[in-house]
């Protein structure tokens, strides 16, 4: 059984709690399955609970920037509607395992700059994950080339792919 999207939209869909004093995720938020956008940025959250598939089935954008997270729960991949995920400036030391399964849906971004991934279908350009400012992104010995390339890409001023081709149509 699927529930029509508008049914979810007529209830609380946007909740912005950025720049507060939250130390953990308030449990009451887990009881609001209608959420579409949730910002918890600039708080002091150290960990997230496991998320079930029914917790936030419509959540599209989740911001966890500037918290004290040490890890992301693997169950993050249960957020089946997720389009945008940002967790910049945390203390995450290992690449979150959930990213593997989210990667197919989220185009990896760093500091809001797109990686130019040739095989990325254009419909994914609205999908992103932001994760700079975490320990696991520092030079990775097993993949030195990839890490170096990522940091160089982060320094470059990249423009979104559609905009690039809009400005330079002759390159299409």
């Amino acid at each position: 059984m699927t529930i029509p999207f508008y049914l979810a939209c007529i209830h609380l869909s946007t909740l912005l709690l950025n720049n507060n004093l939250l130390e953990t995720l308030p449990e009451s938020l887990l009881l609001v399955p209608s959420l579409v956008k949730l910002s918890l940025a600039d708080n002091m959250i150290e960990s997230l609970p496991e998320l079930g598939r029914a917790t936030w089935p419509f959540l599209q954008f989740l911001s966890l920037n500037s918290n004290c997270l040490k890890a992301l729960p693997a169950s993050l991949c249960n957020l089946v509607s997720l389009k945008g995920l940002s967790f910049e400036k945390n203390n995450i030391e290992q690449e979150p395992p959930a990213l593997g399964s989210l990667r197919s849906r989220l185009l990896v971004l760093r500091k809001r700059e797109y990686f130019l991934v040739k095989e990325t279908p254009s419909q994914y350009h609205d999908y992103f994950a932001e994760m700079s400012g975490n320990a696991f992104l520092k030079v990775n010995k097993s993949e030195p080339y990839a890490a170096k390339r990522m940091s160089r890409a982060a320094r470059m001023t990249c423009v979104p792919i559609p905009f690039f081709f809009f400005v330079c149509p002759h390159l299409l």
Partner: protein
Amino acid sequence: MHLVKPPLIRVCSETMIDQVPLEVLRLKSLRVLVLSGNKLTSLPAQLGQSLPELQELVLSRNKLTTEGVNAGRLPCNGMRQIAQPF
């Protein structure tokens, strides 16, 4: 006779309030409530009950704690019971 339409949006930002004003909780049909840049430490327990139509709640830049957010029952309309998309 004047029929005053109930407001759908209420903005109370940067007003240094430390509680959600009671008059706001009387606006039953409110869709958007902006309370950013205040000194709120907790949400009123009757929040969800009072504002069942609320779609957007902006609480950025306050002093809300985890307990303070949990104190306010957010509008959820029993979606958990009926939403079984998977």
